[in-house]
């Protein structure tokens, strides 16, 4: 097979670009291996948020052998900012349904915690996004992770140069952490799902709004370090109305009519990426996380509930993430 000079240069450029993107991940930089032998993902059909959620979610959770008896459960939604009409935040009704379900499963305490990444006025964003009313109605405490008491913790991996982070006491004291992302595209990291959602535990009072130090250290690398340090025990992802395009704030709503439950955050994110029409292996933090935080291969994932179908048209993404689309 012969190759023209132009083809040769294009190939060299493509390989170089791939090496540049992947280079930070070639050398394993983790100290723990949390991958389970097998992972479980359940897809629940939920067309809209006005449908009854409580029983659906409770029955969905019963499909997992989870034990929260007597434990403190932290629900970590994605609550970034509020822009009318934009599907930015995990819907409060889904979060409340999760809280009720964990209470029914015997949890001692259920708290909702978030450190909003853009909006510094937590009360304003809680009110505008509908959380305040729902939290009051269900008598569920909210912890502002941006302003909680902090403890210094050595990171469980070294993809960034940070070595340690100051993290909220409420997060570190929780015995069962549930990442509840809004399924969205993201203009800096490709997607924001259960792993990326955990950057919300990094406190703004210390690191600023947004948490710019994580951008400078590399978002994909920061996600890996934070998730290696703060374990996610369960995932409930809001893909009822997802977001495509210029996420995480200014994309367009994209209805998927699905709630994704998983006992492994990597399996959850890989499944969500497939639901979005993406190839999870092309998203650096998911690919790397599958080496030590969970399973991304369908062979290692027991899938239940609805059938996972890739959409005919993958989610729209900003130009430099076109390569993550599977079609």
């Amino acid at each position, binding site marked *: 097979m012969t190759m023209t000079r132009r083809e040769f240069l294009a190939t060299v450029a493509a390989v170089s670009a791939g090496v540049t993107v992947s280079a930070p991940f070639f050398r394993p930089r983790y100290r723990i291996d949390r991958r389970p032998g097998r992972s479980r993902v359940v897809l629940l059909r939920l067309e809209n948020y006005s449908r009854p959620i409580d029983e659906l979610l409770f029955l969905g959770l019963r499909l997992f052998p989870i034990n929260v008896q007597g434990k403190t459960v932290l629900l970590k939604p994605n609550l970034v900012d509020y822009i009318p009409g934009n599907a930015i935040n995990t819907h409060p009704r889904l979060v409340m349904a999760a809280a009720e379900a964990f209470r029914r499963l015997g949890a001692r305490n259920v708290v909702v915690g978030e450190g909003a990444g853009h909006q*510094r*006025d*937590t009360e304003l964003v809680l009110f505008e996004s509908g959380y305040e009313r729902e939290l009051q109605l269900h008598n569920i405490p909210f912890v502002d992770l941006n*302003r909680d008491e902090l403890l210094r913790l050595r990171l469980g991996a070294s993809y960034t140069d940070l070595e340690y982070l100051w993290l909220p006491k409420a997060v570190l004291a929780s015995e069962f952490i549930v990442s509840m992302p809004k399924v969205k595209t993201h*203009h800096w990291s490709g997607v924001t799902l259960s792993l990326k959602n955990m950057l919300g535990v990094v406190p703004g009072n*210390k690191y*600023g709004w*947004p948490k*710019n130090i994580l951008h400078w250290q590399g978002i994909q690398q920061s996600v890996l370090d934070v998730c290696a340090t703060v374990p996610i025990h369960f995932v409930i992802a809001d893909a009822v109305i997802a977001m495509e395009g*210029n996420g995480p704030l200014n994309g367009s709503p994209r209805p998927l009519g699905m709630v994704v439950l998983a006992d492994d955050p990597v399996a959850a994110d890989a499944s969500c990426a497939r639901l979005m029409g993406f190839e999870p292996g092309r998203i650096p933090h998911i690919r790397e996380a599958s080496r030590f935080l969970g399973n991304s291969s369908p062979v290692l994932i027991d899938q239940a509930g609805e059938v996972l179908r890739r959409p005919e048209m993958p989610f729209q993404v900003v130009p430099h993430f076109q390569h993550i689309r599977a079609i």
Partner: protein
Amino acid sequence: MYSMLALQREHEGAYAGALRCLLDCQNPNGSWPCFIGDDGEGAWTTALALLALANHFAEGASQRKGLQWLLQSAGKESSWLWRWKFRTSDRQVRFDASKFGWPWQPNTNSWVVPTAFAILALRHLPCAWSVEHSGFRLERGTEMLLDRVCPGGGWNAGNGVVYGVPLAPHPDDTAIALLALKHCPEESAVRESLAWLESEALTLWAPWSLAWSALALAAHSRCVARLLNCLADRVGHIDMSDNATLAVSALALDSERFLALLSS
């Protein structure tokens, strides 16, 4: 630091305690930490601490050390290498990297709120007036705020446009920027932002945003009686667990004293 600004000298014991605590937690490099026990590298709180100490002439040494640190602290885009990067390869956010201010944390970009706090500190700290470099930083910081304004007025956390999409302004970020730009009322960015905040403030009820909005609008000679009534009502009815929000609310309800400090 917010509490120190809000406390009046009449509250003698509490005030003296807060002052002692503030002076004791200054880092050896002159900066202030985000909280007691924090790393010693310094942060955005240095500007707030200096503002709180602005009228404490007896604490000159502490002020000068803090000022020195503040003048050395700059957004990462202030270096030629990063300016070049932002001009050539990293163009998704629209901003002029030659106009820089202050970061939240060392080794990160300039952002609106820390820049506005630093401008307020430099303007009101007497020992800053004779330092030549302070004028240069004030000028660049002011230019940075004017450059990052959202289309239509107001400020978000940093840039006004990302990926060609205008960002929505935040009331608190806008108010703090307007306090720092009190001396530039003729700038169109300031006029547009004031108009936006005046209209937005009427819809607010969260004490943090309401208090900052009242302070900024009062500083620009707008009538804030209605906002203060609303704030007083809110403060009286909710259980406020966050000290910073409580202090900023107290400051707004006693806005004349704070504005006198800014006019000194």
